[in-house]
């Protein structure tokens, strides 16, 4: 299983991320999102950030999770390389995501920036489970 792959899109960035579990899929999706912004090889993990999110279903949780990474990138001026995700059921009505993100503060001398991701779109956003879990995402750049 490849962790993620980028697909052709005229104006924006489209990717699919995979996982044996929903948590692994979300971790790989975060890595795909971030690789489109900054070359991961240029990032050293020096700090960690904790994320806790709640949503009605996995799709909403996935959307919030990716939005949160863009938000943290901009507001913390940090770049991320590791994404450890845990999911748990929160009662019968909602799901919770607990994650630890590893990275460091932006260093313009060292970090090789690629695209500016403005936002995660809802266009053709979706999750499927066949042999493995798969999420499809289109980023507005």
């Amino acid at each position, binding site marked *: 299983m490849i962790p993620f792959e980028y697909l052709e899109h*005229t104006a924006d960035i489209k990717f699919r991320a995979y996982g044996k579990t929903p948590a692994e899929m979300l971790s790989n999706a975060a890595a795909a999102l971030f690789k489109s912004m900054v070359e991961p090889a240029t990032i050293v993990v020096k700090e960690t950030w904790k994320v806790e999110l709640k949503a009605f279903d996995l799709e909403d949780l996935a959307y919030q999770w990716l939005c949160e990474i863009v938000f943290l990138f*901009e507001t913390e001026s940090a770049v991320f390389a590791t994404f450890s995700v845990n999911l748990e059921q929160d009662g019968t009505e909602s799901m919770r995501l607990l994650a630890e993100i590893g990275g460091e503060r932006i260093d313009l001398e060292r970090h090789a920036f690629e695209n500016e991701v403005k*936002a*995660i779109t809802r*266009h053709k*956003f979706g999750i499927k489970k066949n042999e493995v879990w798969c999420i499809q995402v289109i980023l*507005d750049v």
Partner: protein
Amino acid sequence: MAEISKINDNTYEVPIGYRPGMRVPGRIFVSAALRDMVESGTIDQVANVANLPGIVNYSMAMPDAHLGYGFPIGGVAAFREEDGIISPGGVGFDINCGVRLLRTDLQATNVQPRINTLIDALFEAIPSGLGATGRLHVSDQQLTEVFTNGSQWAVEEGYGVEADLSHCEESGHMPGADQAQVSVRARKRGRPQLGTLGSGNHFLEIQRVEEIYDEPVAKKFGLFKGQITVMIHCGSRGAGHQICTDHLEVLTRAVKKYNIDIPDKQLACAPLGSPEADNYFGAMVCAANYAWANRHIIAHWTREVFERYFPGSKLDLVYDVAHNVAKIEEHQVDGKRERLYVHRKGATRAFGPSRSEVQVAYQGIGQPVLIPGSMGTSSYVLCGNDRALDLTFGSACHGAGRVMSRSQALKLFTGQNVKAALNRDGIVVKATSPSMLAEEAPQVYKPSGDVVDVVHNLGIATKVARLVPLGVSKG
């Protein structure tokens, strides 16, 4: 499935029935050559927009149309106030992404020998690219004023002059801002980014007026052959992106609440008059005003740089247009005057002389319509015609439009060879990332002249001047 039909040389119709649920037909304004470049996904998006409640006349796509999310890029649609909707998918994440054109009193012959120095200085003076922080440190209170007053705030703070406001769409600030609808997260993203250009297709360009098509109008716009102009393309930065993200969530729920059938989740919307619609509109206006202030500040720093190298030079604002926004406008529909919410996503207003919204300076003429080319190709200034009101609710295209994906561009070009090719054409480029230059290579866009010709030939707007790039600063 119903077939697309040709209406005239520059208009194609997507009939009701092309996709299920269409309430009105679609209209794609392209020439035969550009028609071949319109992807089927883009046509599907035109058809999807035609599903939305209260849509008037047509779901439209401008000649630069390409695949977007929700609306296509280059999409225009108007919705009746009584039974229509508002959708962030028809505005985009970069609310009031737009273009501003400054004219100088300098001749290209004087500027060209110093173009390298000038571009370096502009690149230094105007923060751009990913990870860049602004030169400005606004307080929370100041940010509130930016959201409410836009360019007006900038001028009061000493960025730009009063005359700028009367040469700017909406005078640089739209009424109806609702601070309460802007989240703490949007404020947090927006605050450090005021006065930054951003990345991707955003740019600051020094240009030369290469060709004048309409002398009398060019004179009214203050343009002459051989003149140096400066074009700035950017938007509302993280503030706008977050406002759109936040309200998309709310409107995703509103779609279920109001039982609206949408073919694409990005077309989440709410009925006009509902609290969800009002709240999005109020927040969108805040982002639009932020974008006008942003372009105003960047223009001010551009003037400072020119003053350093060309003391006493004058940089006057020709115009500033929004190309990602929803506006409340009155239009003639079936012989009746109606209030409509006109969504323009990657489309520029192109109002002719009859509209009261046209600034005093251009009344009786029509507004300047600014259409940037890609990094190495010509940009155009056109003049809005009243004919556009009947055809497109007074809208024109916003640029050249992409035809090649970023990954394809990266396979074909490198930043280095794109830069070298532009240098051979006498164009100096400065950018933060080489891969970004490759992704924005001139070849990834449609030929800007072809796109502009459609607008001209349809009578939406008339060609006034062609501007060629001399130097580009990219994020």
